[in-house]
């Protein structure tokens, strides 16, 4: 019952090319008011080519297994759907295309030659759903091992180990798995030698001090010069999207903490905003501001880790300790407020878990008062160091066009000079009340990406100060019947509230059928949860669009022709965590 979904905005379709509105099989109403057109596979490539000049960012590409979905009113029949979410900076609007695919081995035209960023997204859809993208240059598994059988996000694929036979490995299987690990340069698109030299292949990772988690890059080296670098991801894949389909709407919140594990409640925010938007919950002002404050604290925490490790990866030993000491003080605040530290799981659908504790403002004030001077010190120590500059300026440079083409968002995009920040462009959770600037830089190199992030720390401090000064009184959770856990004060007074409370807490709330996506400006770029409810206590499909995933795909482009130490500086400047990439 999509029509039942509340519409806070109407779909803006005037910039969508006529070709699409005319050839669309159907138009779907979605909670996020993004104009959503169903289009036949044969029209897809032309539609994409027409849309690209207006909507240059391929924000997301993913598939849905529609075979068990009950509420599909008005949508064309489909076994699988591929969804394309495009974004325009100039128009500040989005458009979404959906392609209905039939059968158990669906085929869809590839758009990886139109948008290079689509390459990995299509591989992921193949890996998870078995959708074959015709024309894709390298349709291999990306998150799961090459020897995996089945497609994990299909509804018939078991979600729990208890649904499968006990795992065993015999000699044949062992040899088969080991053989699959053999490195064959040709399979990675590399040559063994050129006319005048034989290349060395260096396997950087998955365990390496500077790859920030379990990330592997196969390097083709000529001396120390990187001829080609091919990233290999998936070592940190935990099936978060699959888990979302087995957890209640409420109990999935802790899993979101672990997506960008440096972002803490920032992940909660993206998720609860998407769910709230889907069912139309309005969050009271106090809860909104608490959310903003905590999210900004975590932005600082994440950027501090970036700052320290960035300096460390170019060989400066000390900064990381100072930054971690600051982060530790920040976690003191987080702990006092939420009881948790890195993964507080503290936001709730409809608000936050508790009110702020007594004395919170003194703690926060102490922290934000002390930080600016310390940041200036860190600037003198790290950013103005001439060796650090020489290691990072002009290294790993990309242009604004390349950045958009490859799906870069967040500080990496702003370092190319575009002041695109969703907090300003599409204020959510009350960001319109705050005064802050969107820092940008011009060069688009490693150094500029760091400069932007460090300035963002200062802006976040500004936002937090405004939160402390203007924190409104009032409830910290919505009165909406789907807010969870529901308010308890009247449960002993009337039976309907008691029943609702009991059901919401024991089963979890039953969210009405609907669909919607909510992009936010997370610590590392744009994070978005595309949630689909089929009218149950659990999500039908939760798509997690993370910023780091497309960023890593750019590494070969940024590294070719540079040296191994430059690669390390580039990796550091991207600021990713593998949990955010692999989910």
């Amino acid at each position, binding site marked *: 019952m999509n029509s039942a979904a509340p519409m806070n905005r109407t779909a803006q379709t005037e910039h969508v090319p006529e070709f699409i509105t005319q050839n669309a099989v159907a138009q779907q109403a979605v909670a996020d008011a993004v104009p959503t057109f169903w289009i036949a596979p044969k029209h897809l490539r032309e539609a994409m080519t027409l849309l690209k000049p207006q909507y240059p960012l391929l924000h997301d590409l993913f598939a849905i297994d529609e075979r068990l979905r009950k509420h599909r009113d008005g949508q064309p029949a489909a076994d699988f759907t591929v969804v394309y979410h495009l974004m325009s900076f100039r128009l500040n609007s989005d458009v979404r295309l959906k392609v209905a695919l039939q059968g158990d081995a669906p085929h869809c035209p590839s758009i990886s030659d139109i948008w290079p960023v689509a390459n990995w997204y299509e591989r992921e859809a193949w890996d998870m759903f078995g959708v074959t993208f015709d024309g894709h240059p390298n349709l291999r598994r990306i998150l799961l091992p090459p020897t995996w059988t089945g497609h994990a996000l299909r509804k018939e694929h078991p979600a729990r180990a208890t649904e499968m036979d006990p795992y065993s490995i015999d000699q044949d299987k062992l040899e088969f798995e080991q053989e699959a690990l053999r490195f064959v340069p040709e399979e990675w698109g590399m040559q063994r030698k050129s006319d005048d030299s034989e290349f060395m292949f260096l396997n950087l990772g998955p365990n390496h001090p500077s790859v920030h988690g379990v990330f592997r890059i196969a390097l083709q080296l000529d001396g120390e010069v990187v001829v080609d670098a091919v990233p290999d991801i998936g070592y940190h894949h935990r099936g978060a999207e699959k888990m979302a389909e087995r957890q209640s709407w409420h109990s999935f919140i802790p899993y979101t903490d672990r997506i960008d594990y440096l972002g803490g409640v920032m992940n909660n925010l993206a998720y609860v905003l998407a769910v709230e938007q889907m069912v139309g919950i309005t969050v009271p002002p106090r809860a909104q501001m608490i959310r903003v404050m905590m999210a900004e604290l975590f932005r600082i925490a994440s950027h501090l880790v970036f700052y320290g490790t960035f300096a460390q990866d170019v060989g400066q030993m000390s900064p990381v300790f*100072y930054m971690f000491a600051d982060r530790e003080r920040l976690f003191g605040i987080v702990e006092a407020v939420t009881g948790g530290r890195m993964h507080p799981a503290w936001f709730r659908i409809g608000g936050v878990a508790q009110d702020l504790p007594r004395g919170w403002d003194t703690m926060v004030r102490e922290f934000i008062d002390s930080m600016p001077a310390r940041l200036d010190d860190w600037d003198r120590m790290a950013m103005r160091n001439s060796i650090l500059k020489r290691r990072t300026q002009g290294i790993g440079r990309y242009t604004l066009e390349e950045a958009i083409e490859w799906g870069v968002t967040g500080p990496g995009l702003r370092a190319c000079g575009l002041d695109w920040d969703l907090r300003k462009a599409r204020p959510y959770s009350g960001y319109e009340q705050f005064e802050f600037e969107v820092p940008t830089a011009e060069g688009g190199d490693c150094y500029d990406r760091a400069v932007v992030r460090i300035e963002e720390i200062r802006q976040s401090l500004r936002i937090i100060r405004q939160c402390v000064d203007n924190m409104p009184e009032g409830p910290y959770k919505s009165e909406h019947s789907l807010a969870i856990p529901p308010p308890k004060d009247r449960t002993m007074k009337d039976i309907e509230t008691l029943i609702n409370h009991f059901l919401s807490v024991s089963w979890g709330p039953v969210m009405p059928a609907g669909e919607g996506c909510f992009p936010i400006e997370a610590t590392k770029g744009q994070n978005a949860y595309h949630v689909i409810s089929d009218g149950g206590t659990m999500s039908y499909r939760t798509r997690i669009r993370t910023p780091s995933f497309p960023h890593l795909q750019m590494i070969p482009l940024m590294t070719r022709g540079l040296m191994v130490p430059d690669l390390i500086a580039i990796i550091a400047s991207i600021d990713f965590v593998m949990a955010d990439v692999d989910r």
Partner: protein
Amino acid sequence: MAELKIIGLLLLLLGGAVGGAAVMTWFERRVLGIWQDRLGPNRVGPFGIVLVAADMLKLLGKHDWVPPFADRPVFIFAPTAIVVAMLLGFAVVPYAPNVMVIDMNIGLLFFLGMTSIAVYSVLLGGLASHNKYSLLGGLRSAAQMVSYEVFMGLSLMGVVMLTGSFSLIDIVLAQEDLWFAVTQPLGLFVFVIAGLAESHRLPFDLPEAEHELTAGFHTEYGGMKFAMFMLGEYLGLILISCMITTLFLGGWQGPWLPPLVWFPIKTLAVILFFILLRAAIPRPRYDQLMSLGWKVMLPITLINLVVTGGVALWLSEGGF
């Protein structure tokens, strides 16, 4: 009796140098900890100093493993070379007027020779491991050492000119009125940089560069063989500091205190300076290090040499 004295001194030196290097591992971590707003090792014994013993026990207890793909004899020989070369280097250091193992008339050259031999250790260790990271580390060390050896030697020639001797005793005595640090500031500057590069410590730890090459040339080493590399590195640090004291800071000479107190004080100050550098400065890229060496350091050294030579000549003619 003279032989007994020499043997006693040798034993004392051996124990002192090796023990000093071991304590240095603790000292460095502790000092870095304090500078970096943290505690550093503080659990075992007073101020955590017994950690040195605990570390040694741990390393001794490790499996003495040689990777099957490594070049076995070279793999085993490499870590010993650096320790032996560095220890031999201590033989020519004059700690006090009569406290030194041997007063060679080419003491300075002997020291330079020993540090050159230590390079082989890193190079061979990297090659014998048959590991790609080690190989890259070995390659880097070869390039780095070759270029920095050149002006490490040249940077000291100013001192030699002013003294008129390669004997370290003579060099110390020549500084009775004025330290060479004052008359040879460029020489000191270049020697400090070259010494850093020779002992391959941050910021010049490119052969090791853990952020890039995991552990560089000693990636495959473990247990005591790894400990030998570390020992060699810390011996190198102490030796370079001793040499800076001897060549530029007036050696054992100083007012009020006896020579055997002045020498360690000065050396320790130099060591602290090296640790501070490690804490503060990032690592340049390999080609940047090379160009720094050939395009900045070498010209500075040559200018220093020409100027010093001119001044020495002028002074010997009796000035005006």
